[in-house]
């Protein structure tokens, strides 16, 4: 597998990350595993004692789990759309970040669905989804959508990795035999022959063309689990695009944060440059404006229309004694501040952008909570129940433990993957005007020819 000088340098620079695991990483892996084991214990409790250990009850039938499901699955769709579009439009500055986006795609599509399974009362009957499927149900659509999407995103990531696997195979690295062998198998005998190149690029193009609309479709289907019901705050025609935009937006934020973390951890300043933060920041700003616009449309039409049931939910969202402060947080931290920080040249810096992205991601998680819980707490008939846990949802520690276990799994996979593949893809890398390489004397303006 031949690399040009720039790509070779990029590989040499990152080689040690694959060769050595490092004490720091080991610490994190153990830390994540501990979190996951706490989650495992909670799961055991939930299975052995029933869903009574969660805060979910007959009115609020779904809680943190479905919020996490929407959140993670959204990240996945965002990763696929972002990497797909970067690929299709041949965005040369996007090359170094494609891998991160695709890692996010694949990891979240593994973590996300676990959370919808946690909402299911009978694990032992999951096969019923396949032996008694009912196509009328949005839940069945979602099962089909996620499975299709899963296959698509695995292939998409893999196709993008083949060339790199060939590089790792040929690199003569100081790695254990099994790893060497695995690279050899995964490289599929890729040697960079003209026909191989052509086939690979066609496959990648096709997959990108499939994955972008597929992500939009599956994201909409996810929203229809809620949109297809008759409940205020859910039964909305804009729910499909609203969820697509929310997914893209939060995914963009996670991508920025991941970029910042890896840049620090592996000193990748030459690949994840300041410009990358600024450019992704611009994309984030546009998405923020779009998401804000959708949110405003939702709230405004419901409030102005002032139908009784709709207004009950709106009143809860804006009442400081109910969810008012959270709504404020979700919209200020989740929409206004990111726009402001990127808009002002003074704060248009990697650290600032990463910081607001981090809080924006949290705010978007809260936003999903605000979409799910207040609506479920507002049935058409008054609850008239004296059991407080039935009236108002409050997540229990097993739910939080499993939530953090999900986040830990997400981070664990990121850590492990960054030890298996280079975070910046090397084979397709192009030197662009803002990748000032520290060894280069003359920053090349011309992009590399081989792609």
């Amino acid at each position, binding site marked *: 597998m031949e690399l040009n000088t720039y790509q070779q340098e990029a590989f040499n620079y990152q080689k040690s990350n694959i060769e050595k695991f490092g004490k720091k990483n080991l610490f994190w892996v153990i830390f994540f595993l501990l979190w996951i084991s706490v989650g495992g214990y909670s799961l055991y409790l939930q299975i052995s004692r029933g*869903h009574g250990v969660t805060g979910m009850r007959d009115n609020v039938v779904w809680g943190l789990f479905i919020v996490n499901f929407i959140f993670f699955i959204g990240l996945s769709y965002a990763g696929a759309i972002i990497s797909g579009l970067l690929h299709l439009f041949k965005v040369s500055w996007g090359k170094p970040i494609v891998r991160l986006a695709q890692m996010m795609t694949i990891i979240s599509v593994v973590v996300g669905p676990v959370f919808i399974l946690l909402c299911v009362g009978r694990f032992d009957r999951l096969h019923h989804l396949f032996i008694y499927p009912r196509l009328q*149900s949005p839940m069945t659509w979602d099962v089909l959508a996620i499975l299709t999407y899963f296959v698509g995103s695995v292939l998409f990531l893999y196709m993008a990795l083949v060339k790199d696997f060939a590089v790792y195979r040929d690199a003569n690295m100081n790695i254990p035999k099994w790893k060497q062998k695995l690279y050899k198998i995964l490289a599929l005998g890729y040697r960079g022959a003209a026909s191989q190149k052509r086939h690979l690029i066609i496959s990648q193009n096709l997959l990108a063309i499939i994955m972008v609309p597929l992500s939009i479709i599956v994201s909409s289907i996810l929203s229809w689990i809620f949109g297809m019901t008759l409940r205020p705050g859910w039964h909305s025609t804009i729910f499909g695009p609203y969820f697509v935009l929310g997914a893209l937006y939060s995914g963009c934020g996670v991508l920025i944060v991941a970029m910042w973390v890896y840049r620090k951890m592996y000193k990748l300043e030459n690949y994840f440059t300041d410009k990358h933060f600024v450019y992704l920041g611009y994309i984030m700003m546009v998405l923020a404006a779009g998401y804000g616009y959708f949110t405003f449309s939702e709230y405004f039409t419901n409030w102005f229309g002032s139908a009784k049931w709709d207004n009950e939910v709106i009143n809860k969202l804006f009442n400081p004694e109910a969810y008012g402060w959270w709504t404020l947080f979700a919209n200020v931290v989740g929409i206004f501040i990111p726009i402001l920080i990127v808009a002002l040249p003074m704060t248009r810096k990697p650290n600032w952008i990463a910081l607001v992205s981090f809080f924006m991601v949290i705010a978007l998680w809260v936003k999903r909570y605000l979409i799910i819980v207040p609506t479920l707490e507002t049935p058409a008939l008054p609850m008239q129940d004296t059991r407080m846990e039935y009236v108002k949802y409050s997540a229990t520690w097993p739910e939080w433990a499993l939530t953090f276990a999900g986040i830990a799994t997400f981070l664990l996979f990121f850590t492990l993957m960054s030890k298996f593949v280079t975070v910046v893809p090397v084979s397709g890398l192009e030197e662009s005007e803002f990748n000032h390489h520290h060894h280069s004397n003359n920053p090349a303006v011309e992009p590399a020819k081989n792609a």
Partner: protein
Amino acid sequence: MKEQEINDKSRRDFLKNVAIATVATAACGSLTCSCTSNKTAVSEKVRLLSPDGEIVEIDSAYLNHQEHMAIISKLEAREGIAGKKFVMVVDLARCKNARKCITACQKWHYRPEETEWLTVKLLKDSEKAAPYWFPKQCFHCDNPPCVKVCPVDATFKRQDGLVLIDNERCIGCKFCMAACPYSTRVFNWNEPELPVEIMKQQYSAETGIPAKVGTVEKCDFCPDRAREGMLPPCVEACPNGVFYFGDENEDTVTNGDETLSFTQLIKDRAGYRFLEELGTKPRVYYLPPKERQFPVERGYENLPDNIKARFKDIMEEKAK
């Protein structure tokens, strides 16, 4: 022609069965006592009053046991009772929140005290409107939002109009609960505590017994009793005849005391369906609380404190 015959026959059967159920109630005060009577006991004739006002003599062996004995096939439980179209009419003018319906329902279905398939709400439609008691069970909608969203066909609509749940198929995703606009469905959050003999009983979607952890359940209009010609326990237990249960095909509903024409009743009393605008087409009709038989306070004063607390807000507001 043939169908007409069948309908006529089933109509007669139904009326006969209703009569039996009614007289059984009349004879024993409550059907619970018939549970103790044994079919193999020395048969004796009992003279009872039929719904038509005639005195009839019936062999006591025909009085039905209060047991969940209708063991029918899974397919039958999914198809429903041929020729029937069950319907219920709830007379809001008569309800005083006596809560006998709830107790009877809980008992028949072995439900724990706090899990109510049938519940009584206190509704107040607008600021100036007078509050009224509103008994609510499953509406068995003809366009059921719950059935639409079930991913595994665990909840289904039958030809006799009933919406039932097969809790041996239910995966417990709770989508139906989120979709039901009437908060009808309840979930078994923990392992249900049931008597041993009930635990052992063969499950049928028509009885909903035994309940299973991690699955959804709800009011089923007691089709097992309908097969035996009995009225649901809520209908029988109501001291004020609030609930009329019957068959839309026969155009007959009865509350145990009187048997009326369904269409006539709806017409005369301006029957309506709750939240008609949602398009779910409920099979439960309400008669507006006009010319009420009881002041609303009657259903509040003597309640135990924990239940009183449910309605406190509205009652206190009214007292002002």
